[in-house]
Structure formats: C-alpha cells, structure tokens
C-alpha cells in the first residue's frame, strides 16, 4: 500500500478497525478460558484449571439428549434444504419458471419475516398438527429457515459455472439429466456441499423457532441453553459455548476450503493457467 497522504488519519482508522475486531471476538473468546475455571462462579482470569464443567456436560443426560436431537434435526434439515434448494436454484437459473418474481420473493421470505413471527405462527399450526416436539416438525421448520441460504449459495455456484459447458454436454449427446449428473453436479459440488454446511449450522444454532416448538423432553441444544441461561448461569454453559465456538471455527475452515475448491474449478473451467500459446 502506498504511503497515505494522511498517515495519522490512516493509523487512527486502522486502530479503530482492530478495536472493533477485538469487540467482535472478545466476548465469545473470553468464555473459552473461563470454561476451564474450577469454581461455580465464572471468573476472568480463572484461578485454576479444571475439566469439571465439561465432565458435567457429558454426564448430564438432558444435555446429551438435546445435543443428539439437534444433530438429528441439523442433518435432516441440511439434507432436505440442500435437495429442495438445489432443485429450485436449477429451475431459477436454467429453467423457464412461470411466476418467477413471486418465487424469488418467497425465497427471501424466511429471512425477511422476523423469526419470532414465524416461530409463533409455526407453534400455532404445529400444535394443531401435533408436530411440536417432533423431529419431523423441527426438520420442516429448519429446512424452511435454511432454504434461502442454500438457494443463494447454489445460485452463486451455478452463476460461476460456465453454462456453455452444459451446452457442450448437450452437443456431445448427453440429455439434460445426464448432462447434469456428469458435468454440472461434479462442478458445482463444492457449492452444494457448502450449502449443506450452512443449512446444518443454521439448524444446529437455531434458537427462536426451537424456543416455541420444542417439547418437554424433545428439545434442541439451543432451547436447552436458553432455559439454562434463563434459570441459572451455570458454568456448564460455558463449556457448551466453548465447544460450539470450536465447532463453528471448524465449520468455517471447512467452508473456506470448499470456497477455494469452487474458485479453482471455475478457474480451471475458464481455461486460465494454461493459456500460454
């Protein structure tokens, strides 16, 4: 970067940016050392090291049950939202879709509509359909919440993908279905997988709808956390929060690797890197 005409101003701006970074990260990261503190009162810095709260989590059947329930709901929603969303993205990009504008509006619907509104509405209907506290109920709700992100991720992958390759497949005699499985899908696969990852994280972290449609014994991890925060801030929560943060870091790294894979494929398809006469 060139020397700025106003070095003091630039330094102030940089300092401000890094201060904001600290503000963004600190509250989440400060929990990590605190979760290893031995005392029932969370302190920073912790005065000692103990795995006590982690053990407590792993011994508590209610925590484990909530975790597994969330995993189940997350996996099902991820698969469901990825399937449904990829098909829709294909129709939007490659199809002639009647009422396209309306469908695009419906795609962003679950993002625009506040989750609390959606949660209460789902609660009302799910209660009548006996879907509250069921895996099916959660899978349906979380699939809808994750769909916009899946559709946009796959759309981005499809737009980056060179549509001429599909035409080349057709000219080679592959029908649209075989063309999709032999050419399109392998090339947008990283985008589809990262969409599934998004969907899983969204479902796994989803708190508001879970708050309303959980059952007494069938609740998700966020709902269990919500209850625990509301009643007593136990240090077990700090251990759970730490594990969730680490999981998020892992998911982000995976997502980043997938994004790189996408870019490499797009570059390879564009014939870059090989164009030296």
């Amino acid at each position, binding site marked *: 970067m060139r020397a700025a005409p*106003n070095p003091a101003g630039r330094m102030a701006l940089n300092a401000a940016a890094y201060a904001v970074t600290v503000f963004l990260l600190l509250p989440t990261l400060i929990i990590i050392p605190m979760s290893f503190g031995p005392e029932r009162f969370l302190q920073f810095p912790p005065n000692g090291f103990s795995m006590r709260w982690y053990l407590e989590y792993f011994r508590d059947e209610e925590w484990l049950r909530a975790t597994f329930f969330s995993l189940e709901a997350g996996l099902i929603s991820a698969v469901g939202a990825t399937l449904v969303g990829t098909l829709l993205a294909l129709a939007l990009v490659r199809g002639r879709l009647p009422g396209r504008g309306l469908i695009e509006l419906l795609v962003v619907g679950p993002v625009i*509509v506040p989750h609390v509104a959606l949660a209460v509405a789902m609660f009302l209907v799910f209660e009548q359909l006996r879907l509250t506290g069921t895996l099916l109920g959660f899978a349906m709700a979380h699939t809808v919440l994750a769909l916009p992100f899946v559709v946009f991720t796959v759309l981005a992958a499809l737009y980056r993908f060179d549509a001429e390759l599909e035409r080349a497949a057709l000219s080679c005699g592959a029908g649209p279905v075989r063309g999709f499985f032999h050419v399109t899908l392998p090339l947008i696969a990283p985008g589809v997988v990262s969409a599934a990852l998004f969907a899983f994280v969204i479902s796994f972290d989803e708190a508001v709808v879970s708050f309303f449609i959980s059952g007494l014994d069938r609740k998700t991890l966020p709902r269990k956390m919500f209850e625990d925060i509301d009643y007593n801030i136990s240090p077990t929560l700090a251990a759970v929060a730490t594990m969730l943060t680490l999981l998020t870091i892992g998911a*982000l790294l995976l997502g980043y690797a997938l994004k790189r894979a996408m870019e490499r494929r797009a570059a390879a398809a564009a014939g870059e890197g090989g164009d030296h006469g």
Partner: protein
Amino acid sequence: MRRPSSFLLAGRRYSPAASLLLAAPFLLLIVVVFLLPLATLLHESLFLPSPGLQHYERALAEPVYLRVMLRTLRIAAQVTALALVLAWPLAWVMSRSKGLGLALLAAAVLLPLWTSVLVRTYAWMVLLQRNGVVNQWLQKLGLTDEPLKLLYTEPAVVLAMAHVLLPFMVLPIYSALKGIPEDYTRAAQMLGASAWASFREVIWPLALPGVTSGCLMVFLLALGFFVTPALIGGPQQMMIATLVSQQVREMLDWSFAGALVGILLAFVLLLTVIFRRAVRLDRFVGQG
C-alpha cells in the same frame, strides 16, 4: 407456435413444466411451513373471537403496548447507528487489505456471524451480570465500590444486539467498498480534492448502496430480535418479540399475539418493499 422439443428442454433452458417440477418441493414446503402458518396466525388476529380490528386497536392504543413498540423502534435505531459507526472503519480497512490481514479481519467478522446467537448472548450475560466479569474488574481496579446494574438496561441491550448484528453491517459495506478502485481516491486527490472531499464526493456515494443494505438488514433483524433482548433486556426492557412470546406462552392470547405479529410484519414488509434493491442475501453466503 412454439412447440417444446421435449418435456425437459426448450432450447437452452428447461421447459416450464420441468422447471415447475424442480420448484415443486420448494413450493410445497414454503406453502405448508411458511405461508400457511403465517396466514393462520393473521386470520386468528382478524377473525377471532369476532371479525374486526379490535386486537390491532388494542395494540396501538394501550400505552403499555405502545411503549413496547416505541422502545423496539428506538432500540433498533440505536443498534443500527452503533453498528454503522463500528462497521465503517472495519469494512474500510478490510477493503484495503490483502492476504493474511484480510483473512484475519474476515475471520473476525465471519466467526461471530456463524456462532450461535445464544453463545454470544450468554457471553454478554457473563460479562455484564451483577457479579460478572465487568463488575469484578471494576471493583478490582477500585473504580466502583459495589457492582453496577448493567444487565437488564437499555444500553446493555443495544450493545449486545449491535455486537450480534454487526457482521450484517460489515459485509455489505465491505463489498461496496471493495468495488471502489483505490485509483478513484488517488484520482480525486490528484484533481485537488482533500481527503474529506474525496470521501464525501467519491467514496460515500459509491458506498451508499452497501450502507443502505447493511442498515436495512440490521434494522429489520433488530426489530424482530428475540433471543438477545429477552435474555439481556429481561421483562424490564421488553421489545415486541418478547411481548409476542409473552402473549402466546403466558396469556395464551393468540389473537393479540397475531395482531402484534401483523403490525411487525406490515412494518418489515413496508421497509423491504421501499428498499427492495438493498435486500441482498448473496452478501452473507458464499463468504465462509
């Protein structure tokens, strides 16, 4: 006149029938799990126990509820303003960084974005509660004699919400700023513009779409936010989402909750229609 050549393909694209078939699972889900519940709830608010706008009138007439709504608007506005002030320098420095620096800053924005809202809210509670980290340090440093009341105050709600929603402000501004070549500011300064003038005349107008998009996203999300205000604000700083929850779970008054949701929805949809070009979901995906 136009005869489709096959069920699947019409020229370069899938035929309308095949396209609809691809969209069918989505349409089914969105109708059953999205439109139908919302319609049922709104129906409840308009027709039960008798048809009319009585629930809406009550929501807008009774001072208790009006106060909640005004507080919601006030907090959402404060959160948006605070997030904008915090996001600008970060987005600017990000847009002018490369390599490792950019990766670190981007990670700092993306990690919170994808960390559970509950984890982040919980962190703020640990920091702000009566015997929390902030009070421990304030006393240790001798700045205060006894713990301050930080939790369940409006500034605490604003701060925590701004923290939770900040990535939604940073990302759109960042992508707008990234699109401005550095040569533009150089050119402006070569042409005699001061740093401030080049900001005002060049940077700000070009960044405005990103700023609008970020402000809209944060404001919309803040209006309907549930987890953070419910836990950090408590009943004393009740916002509309908490009020809806209370009506449903404690009063079992679905019609009134429906009316509150109706008002919230009307507000959100109005803003979305006005600023529909600024609703850019693509800015938040494909980044991680």
